[in-house]
């Protein structure tokens, strides 16, 4: 029996920033990123909780730009890769190019599963830049396994290397989860 390889992508420095109104400082980031790198995290997500371009009245301006925070993380890690998040409609290709310059090497494009086509241009750009493009696809219950698999195929064809099934509504327990897994295997 082969042991599956598990990679940890830690989101403390991205998702965690919601709890403090996106007021992470470069110093906070250096401290946490260095510890995560030392603990063997494969990748570290860094930035505004709502992703690139989210510094706004709507989502909170926070204290520092994603570029500053990503550069701070990149400066202290020796092995871990730095990841950024992009919600199409909020973040844009310009934002992605800018954080690539700052050192981000994984791009997770997040959309509702019914709207994956709005993120294809960002997945393609991430690939062109030499980043690893991933899709973070939410609310799978809106579609069900078969249509979700079709949406996953669309992002995979655009270059996405990994499709997360992100159960943001908390519906995939028991049998629905089984069906999703089955459709993915096939």
């Amino acid at each position, binding site marked *: 029996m082969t042991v599956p390889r598990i990679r940890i992508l830690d989101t403390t420095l991205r998702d965690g920033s919601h709890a403090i109104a996106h007021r992470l400082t470069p110093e906070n980031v250096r401290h946490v990123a260095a510890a995560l790198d030392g603990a063997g995290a494969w990748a570290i997500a860094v930035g505004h909780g709502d992703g690139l371009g989210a510094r706004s009245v709507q989502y909170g301006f926070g204290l520092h730009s994603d570029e500053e925070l990503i550069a701070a993380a990149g400066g202290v890690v020796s092995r871990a890769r730095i990841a950024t998040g992009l919600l*199409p*409609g909020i973040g844009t290709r310009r934002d992605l190019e800018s954080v690539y310059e700052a050192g981000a090497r994984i791009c997770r494009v997040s959309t509702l599963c019914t709207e994956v086509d*709005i993120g294809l241009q960002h997945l393609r750009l991430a690939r062109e830049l030499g980043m690893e493009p991933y899709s973070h696809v939410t609310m799978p219950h809106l579609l069900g396994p078969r249509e979700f698999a079709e949406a996953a195929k669309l992002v995979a064809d655009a270059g996405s290397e990994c499709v997360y099934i992100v159960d943001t509504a908390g519906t995939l327990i028991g049998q629905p989860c089984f069906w999703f897994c089955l459709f993915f295997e096939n």
Partner: protein
Amino acid sequence: MNLITCGAQATVPIVAAVSSVASVAYAETVSTVASRSAGPGTRQNIDEFTFATARSLETVDGAVRGKSIIILNPAEPPLVIRNTVYVQTLGGDPDKAEQAIRAAVDEVSRYVLGYRLASEPQFRDELVTVFVEVEGAGDYLPAYAGNLDIMTSAAVRVAELDTKEPAMA
């Protein structure tokens, strides 16, 4: 001739209204549209919507910086397009701003019949927040597709202004 995005059609008049009575440091819009009313063109070029709408906010006299966000909402039944407009001012009188906003809404609603305030304008410190929605006429496209109707209505209005002749009823 090109018409700017539906989000800009609905929000630039509000920013312009505020800027007529106060200095505008920053303008931001959040447009929420029904998934079903966003066609493949918008979906494959969502950044272009964002860029064009933000740039149009910056064309308003005195608006220094613009930002635009678009959200596609798949809720059923579909929702009418809703726009939140944030205007960061430098000083200015809230009463005058409110008058100017209401006048702008009246003006736009003359050529976009379903254009209206979704709630009262809000004033906090120097941040003005305005919610506008656009219900479509429901002639051919469904009523929730106000984002499409506003384009048609704006095109008719531009044509009228261009020809200086009233459109046929």
